[in-house]
Each structure stands twice: as C-alpha cells, then as structure tokens.
C-alpha cells in the first residue's frame, strides 16, 4: 500500500512531496494516497499547509521535490493546456466560496458551462437549475453574491464546482465559520453528492467532529509530515499522543500552549 500505486483505486497519489515557502518548510517528504470514490479527509492544525496541499494537487503551486499524480497524470509535468483539461475534471470549493462578485448566482454556476461547453442556452439553464436544486438554492438564482450568507455562498460555490460533473472535488475548510444549521446542510450535501454522483471527495479541515462523521479515511498532518492515518475509528483510538491532543482539543500536550519563548521570570524581571 505504501508505495504500490494502483491507479484503479487511487485517484490522487502524492509521493515524497516537499514544499517550502520562503525559509519555512511546509511539507517535508510526505506521501499519501487518495482512494477513488471515497471521502478522504486531511486534517491538521492551522498553518500546516492543508490549503497549500490542495493547490499543489490542483497544479497552482510547484513542489520543490516529489510528485503529485492525479488520475495517472503527473500534474506538474503537464503542459498548460493539458493541465487545464485535467482541471475541468477537478472541482475545488474555496473557503470563501470565491464566487465572482459581479455575476449573479445563476451566472456564477453557468460560468464553467459557458466557458467550456458548446451547449445551448436552454440546456445550460436546465443544468444550472439542476445543480442549484441539488444544493437547495434554485430560488436564489437571481441574487448577487454579496446578498448571500456565508453558508449559502459556499453552497453556490459547490453547485458551481459540480457544474461540469467532475471526477473529484476538493473542499477547503468547508465547515469553518458555519452556524449549526448550515453545517448540517453542508455535511449532508458533501456526503450525498459523493454517493449520488460517484465523486471522490478530499476534505481539508480542522473541524474534528464533523470530519470524523463524514470521512472514510483520514490523514492527520503535523509539521510537514503525516502524523497519523486511518479510518475515523482508528484515528479516534490512535495511540499517538499528538493525534489524541488534536482530536480532543487539549490545550497542552505535545503541542505546547506557549509559543517558544525565553524563561518567563527572566523575561519579566530583566529590566
């Protein structure tokens, strides 16, 4: 399993990936595989480069070392046109939604269809309404993005991400900053869409509870490495102290409450 990549079961395979931003090493030789048709979660504290990982998978950033293979294509060796063709089959849901603020909800969802297909306007209209119906926002089609709540914006973005019927969707922190009702809706939508459309979902999140209920397989990242992996049960019962601290949210443990500093007493009485 570790290095044997089976393209029938793995949709994304990351091998020995290193990436740094400035002097800071964000990934230090991580390897992970994402199975087809499943919901895989990538968890870790803020600043561990979870979003960066999605951008590496999408080919927006280039790694220092290692490779990212998506559906048998090495993302970073593709020509630009081929990369764009591949991206049409990958949906990504940004944390902010990333809706175009000068277009209505309808036009936002229609945008990828208009850009990439030669479908007639009435066909596009039907498709957009189908997708909006799937996220429960068919009635909001004429609103502008600034008239939407955060949860609604994320659902519109989700409708846009599935507009071209991609093979996989990457969710960047889908649960962050949502009220309980929106959260419930999103959890349900992600699960339903994954099963109904036969998608592969990659969820990047630090919301433990929701992620544990929804994911089939979980990777926990820390300090540029995979700190733990397994099914939600395996993660819950992990014997790694670090993973336990992360999923229980303890304030002190292997990750210290205090940012590294000099001795407190010495610091206070220095002057």
């Amino acid at each position: 399993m570790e290095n044997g990549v089976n393209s029938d079961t793995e949709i994304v395979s990351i091998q020995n990936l290193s990436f740094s931003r400035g002097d800071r090493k964000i990934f230090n030789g991580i390897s992970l595989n994402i199975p087809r048709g499943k919901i895989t979660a990538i968890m870790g504290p803020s600043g561990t480069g979870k979003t960066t990982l999605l951008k590496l998978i999408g080919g927006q950033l280039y790694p220092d070392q290692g490779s990212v293979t998506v559906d048998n294509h090495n993302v970073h060796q593709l020509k630009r046109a081929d990369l764009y063709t591949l991206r049409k089959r990958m949906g990504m849901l940004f944390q902010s939604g990333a809706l175009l603020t000068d277009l209505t909800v309808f036009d936002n969802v229609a945008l990828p269809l208009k850009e990439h297909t030669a479908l007639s306007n009435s066909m596009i209209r039907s498709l957009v309404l189908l997708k909006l119906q799937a996220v429960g926002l068919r009635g909001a089609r004429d609103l502008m993005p600034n008239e939407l709540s955060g949860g609604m914006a994320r659902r519109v973005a989700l409708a846009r991400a599935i507009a071209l019927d991609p093979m996989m969707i990457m969710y960047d922190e889908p649960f962050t900053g949502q009220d309980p009702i929106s959260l419930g809706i999103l959890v349900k939508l992600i699960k339903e869409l994954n099963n109904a459309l036969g998608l592969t979902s990659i969820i990047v999140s630090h919301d433990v509870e929701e992620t544990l209920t929804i994911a089939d397989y979980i990777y926990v990242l820390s300090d540029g490495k995979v700190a733990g992996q397994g099914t939600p049960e395996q993660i819950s019962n992990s014997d790694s102290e670090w993973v336990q601290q992360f999923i229980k949210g303890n304030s002190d443990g292997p990750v210290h409450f205090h940012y590294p500093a000099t001795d407190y007493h010495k610091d206070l009485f220095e002057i």
Partner: protein
Amino acid sequence: MTHFLQRLGHTTLSSFAKLGRGSFFLIQILSACLSVFLRPKLLIKQLYSVGVLSFLIITISGLFVGMVLGLQGFYILSDFGAEETLGIMVAASLVRELGPVVSALLFAGRAGSALTAEIGLMKATEQLSGMEMMAIDPIKRIIAPRFLAGFISMPLLSALFSSIGVLGGHMIGVGVLGVDDGSYWAQMQAGLDFQDDIINGIIKSIVFGFAISWISLFEGYDTIPTSEGVSRATTRTVVNSAFTILGLDFILTALMFGDI
C-alpha cells in the same frame, strides 16, 4: 554601512524581479488580447466601466483647464497686443501637452486605481485562483479585456479633454474677454499642424493608455492579498503612473518636437 549596502542590494534585486514579473505579465496579456475580440461583450462591459464612467471627470477638468488657459493666456498676450492669437495658444497647449498629460493623470486616478483595487480584491478573495481551478484563464477572462478597454479609452478621453478645453478657452476668451470669434478659430486653424500637433498628441495618449493599463493591472495582480496590500498597491498605481506619464511625456516630447 553594510546594512545600507544590504538594503540597496535587496531593493535593486526586488525591483528587477518585479520588472521581470511585470514584463512576463505584459507578454501574457498581449498574447491573450486576440481572444478578447472574439468575445466583444466582455470588452464592451469594461469599456463602459473604464471609459464611459471617466467621462464626467475628464469633461469637467477639460473645461476648467481650458478656461484657465483662456484667462492666463489673454493677460499675457494682451501685454503684447497679441490677444487675437489666443486660439492657437490654447489649442496648442492642450493638444500637445495638457490634453494627453492631464487626462492621463486623471485617468490613472479615476480608472487605474479602480482597476488595481478590483483585481487586488479579486486576488484577495481567491476569485482569480478559483477561476484557474475552473480551468478559466483569468488573464484572458479578466485582465485582457480591462487592458484593451484602458488602451482604447485613453486616446478618446484625451481627445475629449482637448476639445472641451478649446471650448472652455473660447468661452472665456471670446465670451467674456472679447477676443474676436473669427480670429480665435482662424488662428487655431492656421497655426495647428495635423501631423505635428494632433497626431503626436494622440500618439502620446496611446502610449500613456498602454502604460497606465499595464501598471494598474499588474499592481493589482501582483498585490499582497490583504487589505493593507491592496491599499498599498492602489497607492503605487497612482504614484507610479504619474511618474511614468511625466517621464514618458518628456521623452516623447523630446523625440517629437526637439532636436535631441
């Protein structure tokens, strides 16, 4: 001393790096321009927001600059009893210099800063990355139509500025100060050369339009995606555009009118 040298080196390196990014960005825009003509709707929308919405500031400023020229010109020319040549004085100042330069400065403040802020915020709110992930090239869909709109609007706005200015000069010179109407226009007709004055003025404004669009779009695209970053980028657009306009104006004037 070492600190100073270190900073000097750092500044030099980063400005060259920025120049490189800017040039690469320009090449990307230029190669995407052709595709914009295939989708005129995008261009028309930008022509409206970049060009048409700048109409008011250009018209009013042109009128006042023309009126001031009429007033100042009349006082000086009348000392020599040459107030009948007011027409050519106003028109030549406007068409050769003030029209292209002042309208470009106003355009950079009105439209350039808006472009930078818009693109910067699109970057900060991940709209540009979102488009890339939808396999839509933001250079083609967002940047190139705005670039062309700026490039096309600038000479037109500059021509508008000069024309309104000539009318403003007429309003003060002929209407208020009593210069002869016929000689105002006749002097202008006789003294202005189509090639030397009008075409050269248009060339200037085309160059300025190119520079302003490039600077403002690049500053927006290259911004640090935070609110402070966008605010600094917007300031840089206005300041750098002003320097570029004035510098280019000197070079172009020297090439066109001087014997340097």
